């Protein structure tokens, strides 16, 4: 789609007020729209569906990097699972494509083992190739998600690790700023 494809009616973009006047109107419109959307969805190619899923994943990862939230769930593996499931019908095929053992992938996906550098690097290159036909995908994203999560977890759980760690830390000859 080129930049100049579209014509413009004089002043047409100055403003649209499309607020619903009632909840009933919104529901009625929503119902009619949903029926039409479902018809259109039938013609949606699997290629476009995969593109949409990968774009959604990328946007979610970027949002997480921008505003990390620490929760019990592991975002890295959640994103990884979404990534694999968007493009493979069997996870073992992804394991083959990045030349790792299927059991290792299963352990990483199920949070039984942390990914090592080799895995992250292969994932980075795999994603670069996958997103090449879809949209820009910064090679840092997986690393950023992984370490952002680690950092958020450390900061959120200080009460668990700090007392034990502080016992091992002291500074000799600490000079006061008043001296």
């Amino acid at each position: 789609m080129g930049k100049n494809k579209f014509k413009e009616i004089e002043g047409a973009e100055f403003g649209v007020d499309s607020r619903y006047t009632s909840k009933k109107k919104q529901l009625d419109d929503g119902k009619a729209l949903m029926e039409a959307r479902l018809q259109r969805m039938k013609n949606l190619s699997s290629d476009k569906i995969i593109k949409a899923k990968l774009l959604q994943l990328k946007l979610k990862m970027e949002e997480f990097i921008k505003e990390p939230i620490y929760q019990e769930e592991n975002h890295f593996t959640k994103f990884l699972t979404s990534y694999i499931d968007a493009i493979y019908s069997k996870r073992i095929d992804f394991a083959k494509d990045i030349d790792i053992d299927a059991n290792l992938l299963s352990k990483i996906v199920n949070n039984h083992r942390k990914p090592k550098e080799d895995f992250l690097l292969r994932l980075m290159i795999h994603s670069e190739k996958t997103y090449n036909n879809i949209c820009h995908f910064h090679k840092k994203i997986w690393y950023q998600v992984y370490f952002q999560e680690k950092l958020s977890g450390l900061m959120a759980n200080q009460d668990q690790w700090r007392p034990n760690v502080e016992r091992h830390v002291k500074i000799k000859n600490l000079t006061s700023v008043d001296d």
Partner: protein
Amino acid sequence: MIVISSANGKEYKVEIEAVQANDYKSITKSRYFFDWKKEQSQEVYKIKIVGSSDILGLVSVERIPEEWRIHIRLITVSKENKGRDKEYENIAGNLITFISKIAVREYGELACVSLKPKGAIAQHYIDKFGMNITGMTLSVEIAEILELINTYDHDYGEK
């Protein structure tokens, strides 16, 4: 995302952010065509050139998650960007694309952005943004959204 100067064709990077409470002092009806103060309880976004505080356009939306849809309540460009003598091109397109990206992030392949313009304006939105028409409602769904992103979002566009 960029806007293009109508005067010299120069491109300017833009950013779109949530409107803050103190922004409403400068968002007047005479410059932005609607009483935006009434939208303060809604999700409202502003578009401006990076490094400038001047608001070029505004959009307010309502999320309807049960329908995987975001409905545009109000959308406008500033007075200087209306009509043939507008200062910058692409303001409304960028705002619609921005909302479409939120819809994709939230609803994936089911994403839908809707609005209800009237008369000739509706035809303009159909022609310019490839919108589908259902009764009086216009919408972009995933196929159109991917096109919009390709056209307007230079950070994300399809290669």
